[in-house]
């Protein structure tokens, strides 16, 4: 048995991590590119911003279910994503991904291209340049992307309900628990849970802002 709050934090935390890792890689590949492949990839990544989460969840259910080749393969290697909390992580990662890609890509594109050019004439590989120059200078965008991703993942409801279901103690995240309480007419629980989610979100946002200001003091001088 996991409390809805802990489950929500765990799902949102892992989803943020996965979205950051894959989002940074995607943003790096897409930055300053305008080929057809880049545009289609960009549109696909951004689809979750446009589609209703239920549609997204349905796609995931079809894609990852035992009837699909991918689902069957995953099952054969012992990974079961349908009606598990891991499935909720997949759903939250996908809805959070465009937010990470969007803000990271903008931050990467804002880094002076001359820096990259000079670094190339100094013999450094593109990967080394990305790690030592681009990422450190784009960290504000990464932080913003991470915050947005976490917020979106924490509030994720529709796609999660579709793929992970509503199994108390196993896949019931806080937003789903609130929905459940309201459906059951248990207003006291709904109030308590809504308040809990709100307070948690405020605490996290304040904490991150404080952290970014601590780091930001140094960065302002870096950029002068």
């Amino acid at each position: 048995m996991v409390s809805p709050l802990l489950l929500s934090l765990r799902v949102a935390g892992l989803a943020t991590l996965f979205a950051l890792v894959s989002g940074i890689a995607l943003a790096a590949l897409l930055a300053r590119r305008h080929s057809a492949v880049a545009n289609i990839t960009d549109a696909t990544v951004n689809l979750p911003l446009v589609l209703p989460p239920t549609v997204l969840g349905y796609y995931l259910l079809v894609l990852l279910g035992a009837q699909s080749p991918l689902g069957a393969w995953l099952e054969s290697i012992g990974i079961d994503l349908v009606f598990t909390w891991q499935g909720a992580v997949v759903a939250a990662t996908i809805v959070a991904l465009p937010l990470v890609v969007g803000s990271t890509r903008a931050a990467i594109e804002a880094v002076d291209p001359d820096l990259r050019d000079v670094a190339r004439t100094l013999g450094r590989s593109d990967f080394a340049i990305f790690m030592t120059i681009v990422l450190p200078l784009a960290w504000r965008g990464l932080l913003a992307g991470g915050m947005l991703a976490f917020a979106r993942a924490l509030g994720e409801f529709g796609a999660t309900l579709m793929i992970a279901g509503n199994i108390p103690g196993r896949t019931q995240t806080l937003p789903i628990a609130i929905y459940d309480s309201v459906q059951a007419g248990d207003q006291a629980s709904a109030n308590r849970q809504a308040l809990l989610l709100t307070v948690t979100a405020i605490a996290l946002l304040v904490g991150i802002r404080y952290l970014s200001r601590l780091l930001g003091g140094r960065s302002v001088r870096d950029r002068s």
Partner: protein
Amino acid sequence: MTEANFRASFRLELPDFKLAPEFELGAEMAVLFGASGAGKSLTLRTLAGLVKPDEGMIRLNGQVIFDGEDEIDLAPQDRRIGYVPQHYALFPHQTIAKNIAFGLHDVSNSERDARVAELLARMRLEPLGDRKPGEVSGGQQQRTALARALARRPNMLLMDEPFAAVEEDLRAHLRQELLKIQKDFGIPVLLVTHSRAEAYALAERLIVLSEGKVVQSGDRDDVFRRPRTPTVARLMGMTNILQATVIGSSEAELTADWGAYRLTIASPGLRASGDPLTLGVRPEEIYIAPNGDDQGLDNHFPARLVKDEPQGADHLLQFETNNQLLNVRVSHPAFMKLELATDQERMLSLDPEAIHVVPDAA
């Protein structure tokens, strides 16, 4: 002339611009000079390997670094050409020492530390190694960028407008330093500028770029004093271009008709009568005779002052004569002494030595 270490001849076509320069350099200080939009920065970026030309050949110390036909195109990482872009592009989040060490990833730690220490000392940056680029002056930033490029012991150095971000008073000193660094490292240095004064102060070799093409290249004084085309003449400050016709010539002198006036020009070589001549004259080499004193002047003619543009220590004047405007530069004291005022007529005079015959009048 020094033996050529570097030779470039390439063509790069962009939707709205065509770049096709051709030049060579020895281990010397060369200046790539031209107006904005002439293609100077793009040329540097192409040499550094950051832009790929459509065709041509670039060679450095006998090694082909680009060949359009053989499809050789060395990456910027492999060219060993140092590049200092405009505004230096220092890494703002790294210290001065880390900036300098950035290209030394493939040498041992002790070697890296030694080279960084040596360059910090050489560039008089020793106490600033732990500072960030944003915390040091423009001149120190410039020296940091230079040190960073030199740390890898490049075979050539490219610099794009290196003095643009430096205070005027410091420039003369920094130019001297740069000349000394070029001598110490003994590599070709190609520096881009659009400032004539800077080009003159630095260049051993002057390469003049106009609309993507090298219009003249050679020894600084040769290009400066003997521009080959009207375009180069104007870029070199010979802003008065006169069209005349030869009426007689001897070994030492040329006589020509310039509209209503006759000019004597000190020019070696014989020319046929009736040949058209294009002449270049610097604004500072036109003499304004004091009122009523026009005896014994060479090549004198009346002209009317139409414009006076004070420029600090100088005045840039425009005189109208012979259906043409002539630019004349005089110092402020001389201007006051002459008691000039617009619409006044004065006698102007051209020294036969001060008139340059532009050979390729395009």
